């Protein structure tokens, strides 16, 4: 079933009747947030930060006490009220596949996932940092979307229910059904490219490469690359106390932080930048593929866009495979 929708405000208003709606918000769409009444989603450019926090909260107190620590502090699960995530692009959905694999054994994660209906947005334009095509992605893929959405040349939107959950979400939609939908509008751009065939295997045995010194040199340990990434999923577990309140929380963490592997004795197996940048790159393109048969990168390019020192993971992979920086 397909509909033509004139503007996003009307679509958002309809979806809000089905659950809380999360969509790209902020100036030009910097990140995913709760869409307020009368607020329009900002779909024109890729968000700076992925939708990861909607599926793995940045901080979640799963044990909490209000009056001194006590053994009876109850377990607090994720909020699993029905919700809609609007505007996730194909690269974000490929990132979510990683979370689905890694957290498959967690009932809390599965419940959060099944409380979520995804209205995906086919990519309207390639950006200069995008490399999803090199990672086997397709900017117009509808994989993982319950409902797909795209913009057409005349500025209207085409909405299609792709799954049963999507059909249920669109039930009662007050939009005009479309028999023959116009094609999506897509603007190409120059972007980094990499031969992904054999990428994982080509990195076998690169642990001792001199390349890591070169790659790590420009890193300033800011961790942005891991926090904007739709596939990164590492976290820490920490106890915090504020006055008489406190609890135990899972909090996003980063393999690029020195403290990530530093032990109480002071010993740190990944004490230097070369070891840390190696961990991030090999986890994504070598270790994870060995376990799951897929790359842990969707090519969204956010790490390239967000790096304050201009590091470019496509160039770095090329370097590691014996090529030179472009």
């Amino acid at each position, binding site marked *: 079933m397909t509909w033509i929708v004139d503007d996003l405000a009307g679509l958002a208003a309809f979806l809000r009747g089905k659950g809380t709606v999360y969509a790209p918000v902020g100036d030009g769409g910097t990140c995913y947030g709760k869409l307020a009444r009368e607020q329009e989603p900002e779909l024109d450019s890729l968000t700076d930060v992925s939708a990861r926090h909607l599926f793995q909260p940045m901080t979640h107190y799963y*044990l909490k006490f209000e009056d001194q620590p006590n053994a009876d502090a109850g377990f607090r699960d994720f909020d699993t009220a029905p919700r809609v995530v609007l505007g996730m692009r194909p690269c974000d959905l490929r990132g979510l596949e990683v979370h689905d694999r890694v957290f498959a054994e967690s009932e809390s994660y599965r419940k959060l996932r099944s409380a979520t209906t995804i209205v995906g947005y086919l990519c309207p334009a390639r950006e200069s940092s995008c490399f999803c095509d090199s990672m086997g992605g397709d900017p117009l893929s509808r994989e993982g979307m319950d409902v797909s959405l795209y913009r057409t040349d005349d500025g209207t939107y085409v909405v299609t229910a792709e799954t049963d959950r999507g059909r249920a979400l669109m039930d009662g939609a007050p939009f005009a059904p479309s028999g023959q939908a116009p094609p999506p509008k897509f603007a190409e751009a120059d972007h980094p490219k990499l031969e992904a065939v054999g990428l994982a295997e080509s990195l076998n045995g690169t642990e001792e490469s001199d390349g890591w010194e070169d790659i790590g040199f420009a890193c300033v340990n800011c961790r942005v690359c891991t926090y904007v990434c739709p596939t990164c999923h590492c*976290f820490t577990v920490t106890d915090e*106390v504020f006055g008489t309140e406190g609890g*135990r929380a899972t909090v996003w963490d980063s393999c690029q932080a020195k403290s990530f*592997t530093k032990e*109480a004795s002071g010993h740190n197996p990944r004490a230097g930048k070369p070891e840390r940048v190696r961990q991030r790159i090999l986890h994504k393109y070598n270790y994870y593929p060995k376990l799951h048969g897929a790359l842990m990168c969707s090519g969204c390019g956010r790490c390239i866009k967000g790096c304050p020192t201009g590091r470019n993971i496509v160039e770095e992979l090329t370097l590691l495979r014996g090529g030179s920086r472009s």
Partner: protein
Amino acid sequence: MIDLLKTETARVLDVVDEAPGLKTFVLEPANAMEFSPGQFVLVSKLGVGESVFAISSDPSDTGKIAVSVQALGKNTNALHELDPGESVGLRGPYGNSFPIDEWRGKRVFVIGGGIGLAPLRPVVYSLLARKHEFQSLSLVYGARLPQLLAYKPELERWKEEMEVHLTVDEARDGWDGKVGVVPKVMTELALSPDNGVAVICGPPVMIRFGHIALRDLGFSDEQVYTTLEMKMKCGVGLCGRCNVDHRYICKDGPVFRMDEINHLG
């Protein structure tokens, strides 16, 4: 992921002073916990934090588990304040275990350094419980100073039942036993690789040189087992920090045969 981090409670039954800065806590889990030698648990005080400890007690002593805690950081210092009767958070057991069944009929050498004997103590208990099944059982154990040798009462008891070689890096306090680091003593003892299996745990440098000593004695990497330690938070293969190559030490380990980890560096 959070559902996989739920904690149970346990009551502190006993606190044993092993050595300066090292205490063993005997815990009674609210829900009975069975474990195999080599596995670990996370012990916590809510509002302070959770830490990973190898289980150091006898697996056949059901209803109890013990962890040996060296006071080093925030969590371990807080645990050192615990008295019998108090309650702690507990989850586990996690990780794989030593394949003791595969060692039947062999000469087994248990080699420990300092606090590294903690994960090996359940191995020794299990080996002794069925000692007729093995060709021979030996322990080589060392610490920096005599006072830092852990489990002294057990070491005395084990001397009656197996070959025990103790050594210290620096002789003090009237020590009249062997002096020298564990790898040196292993070489002096000429541990025989013939039908042998070695299980080694200690500080990283001791494992490294102990492994070299075993190689020089003729042990193949298939004959040597160790248990790796890395900072861990979740214990269930999700949080990422103990990831080495495609393995997670907490889930695929902590016990490895040397040939499985040689390339991990």
